[in-house]
């Protein structure tokens, strides 16, 4: 039984605490992004940092996603630990060259002379009618880029502990936050709270089916698990928390036990992270141990539409997760 005292925080407040604590301990950290200083960030993640750390370390930038990302890479090369906020994570398409062609590769191309301790963070803003240019879930893009670390937390405690680890890591990290989770409260341990990169967390134990889900898909999967439990199906929800590196041992251990795998992911289906999890699991769990063909519950292969019934149709749903689990239970 844990004796660590906790407080209830929203995910936004937990992220804010992580930034504040890390900036207090390391003067080389600067935070740069659009509306992050005076306004404290559109979603309040950087609220109050300007007052505490001043305008040299908390920078309201021009609307220049490529330049602020590139400046983050450059700052990292000479010994700073920049944290770049993308106001909406979709805007990363403007910064992909700086992130992937520069940040992710500079260490390798230099033969290991440099490291790039950079965090690029921003919200995934789907599910609220923001339409196709503000609602993408793009983790597969980053997982596909050698050199990047990709993190997608599902709880306030994980968000805080992982952001602190991301800032301390010597590699470029893409940190994806779900906008709908910013206001969700959760228990966060008091004091120094670090969550290690590359370690999954079993969010619910169960003997029948393994669901692998990260970020907002964890909440959806837990909801499905509660519903299925009433029908006597015990679902285990494994949250990898970091998508690259991936704790494949934890996933494989669970699947080897249940023999059934469902991956829930809000990204588009083709070339998506769900497909990657299925393939990677097959590398580690013999086909003979599967009692059913693995299922993927993903967004459909469309841009994210605006109108409520359309967006609901495209994104993974509770019914979609429940029926996928039901299918694997039927073998």
């Amino acid at each position, binding site marked *: 039984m844990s004796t660590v005292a906790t407080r209830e925080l929203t995910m936004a407040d937990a992220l804010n605490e992580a930034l504040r604590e890390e900036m207090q301990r390391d003067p*080389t950290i*600067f935070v740069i992004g659009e509306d992050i200083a005076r306004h404290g960030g559109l979603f309040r993640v950087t609220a109050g940092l300007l007052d505490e750390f001043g305008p*040299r*370390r908390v*920078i309201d*930038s*021009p609307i*220049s996603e*490529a*330049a*602020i*990302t*590139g*400046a*983050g*890479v*450059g*700052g*990292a*090369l*000479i*010994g*700073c630990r*920049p944290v770049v906020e993308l106001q909406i994570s979709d805007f990363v398409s403007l910064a992909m*060259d*700086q992130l992937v*062609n*520069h940040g992710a590769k*500079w*260490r*390798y*191309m*230099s*033969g*290991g*002379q*440099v*490291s*790039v*301790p950079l965090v690029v963070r921003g919200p995934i803003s789907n599910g609220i009618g923001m339409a196709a240019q503000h609602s993408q879930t793009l983790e597969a893009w980053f997982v596909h880029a*050698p*050199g990047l*670390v990709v993190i997608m937390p599902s709880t306030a405690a994980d968000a805080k502990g992982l952001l602190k680890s991301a800032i301390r*890591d*010597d*590699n470029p990290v893409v940190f994806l936050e779900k906008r709908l989770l910013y206001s969700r409260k959760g228990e966060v341990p008091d004091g120094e709270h670090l969550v*290690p*990169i*590359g*370690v999954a967390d079993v969010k619910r134990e169960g003997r029948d089916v393994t669901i692998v889900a990260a970020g907002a898909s964890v909440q959806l999967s837990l909801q499905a698990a509660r519903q299925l439990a009433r029908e006597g199906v015990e679902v285990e929800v494994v949250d990898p928390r*970091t998508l*690259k*590196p*991936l*704790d*494949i*041992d934890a996933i494989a251990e669970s699947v080897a036990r249940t023999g059934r795998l469902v991956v829930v992911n809000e990204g588009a289906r083709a070339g998506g992270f769900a497909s990657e999890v299925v393939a990677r699991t097959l590398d580690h769990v013999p086909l003979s141990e599967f009692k059913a063909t693995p299922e993927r519950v993903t967004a459909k292969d469309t841009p994210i539409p605006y109108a409520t019934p359309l967006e609901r149709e495209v994104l993974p749903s509770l019914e979609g997760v429940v029926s996928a689990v039901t299918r694997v239970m039927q073998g």
Partner: protein
Amino acid sequence: MTSVETGASVALTQLYLAMARIRAFEAKAMDLFAEKYIRGSVHPYTGEEAVAVGVCAALRPEDYITSTHRGHGHCIAKGLELRPMMAEITGRATGYCRGRGGSMHITAMRHGMLGADAIVAGSLAMAAGAAYGLQLQGKDAVVVAFFGDGGAQQGIFHEAANLAAVLDAPVIFVCENNQWAISTPISCAIRIENIADRAAGYGFPGEVVDGNDVLAVRDVAARAVERARRGEGPTLIEAKTYRITPHSAATPTDNRAPDELSYWRERDPIVRFGRELVEAGHASPERLEELDRQAGEEVEDAAEWALASPYPDAAAAEEDVYAPADWLTPGRLA
């Protein structure tokens, strides 16, 4: 060594030697490409030597530069050693980047070389951020970002220049206007006479300089560097120059008019500076020949050393994708 050289003469002849080194290095690199010791391509800096050498003459060892696909000249001007440079572009384990980068991606942190970037204008925001980060850490080092006239039409140029301006970052953007983007003349790319004029749009000085005049380049760069060190922010320098060899070893076709080429060959920055040194009594013609010979010998030595060096062990291909971390265990990444 002539005994009449004064301190000033020594400094000037060193500039000549640096330019001669670049010229000899590129000629050798082209030969090694033809002999298939170099993969991919080589983008020779031939004809533009006065820009890199002039700018780097205004820098301290602790200052940084970023470079381009046409980057050998910047490296040599910043003081990189020829042996590991040649080893890098011939793909050897003894290269600056252990054979990972090649001709277009030489990084040498111990010489203040943040890296050569083969994405046109790609390094400008990195340079601005590095400059800002140095200032934030209380250092008075500056960063020079070299790029070409083609790069001035990239979006990142505008974003980086503007961001550097609002951050007062100690960065100097050096646009080497060699007037051609492979086969496209600058007249097809921009509708203004001087790229330096764009600096006004970002709120910092822009200066045009004769990029084939090494001392003029040095003086303009020195003013920009001092301004940056004083915390007064960026400068855009446009050095008008010309590459007198084709775009690259892999694309030898040259559609430029012979008249234009001969016009610029007559304005060769090395020949011109040599003539000035002789006329001003800083060096004899024999001394310049000696420096040319020295440059050639250094380059030959570097090539011999490189070609005698081992290739990287294939097993090293997966090293250094990530910096050391607790989570870096096999099987976790792919």
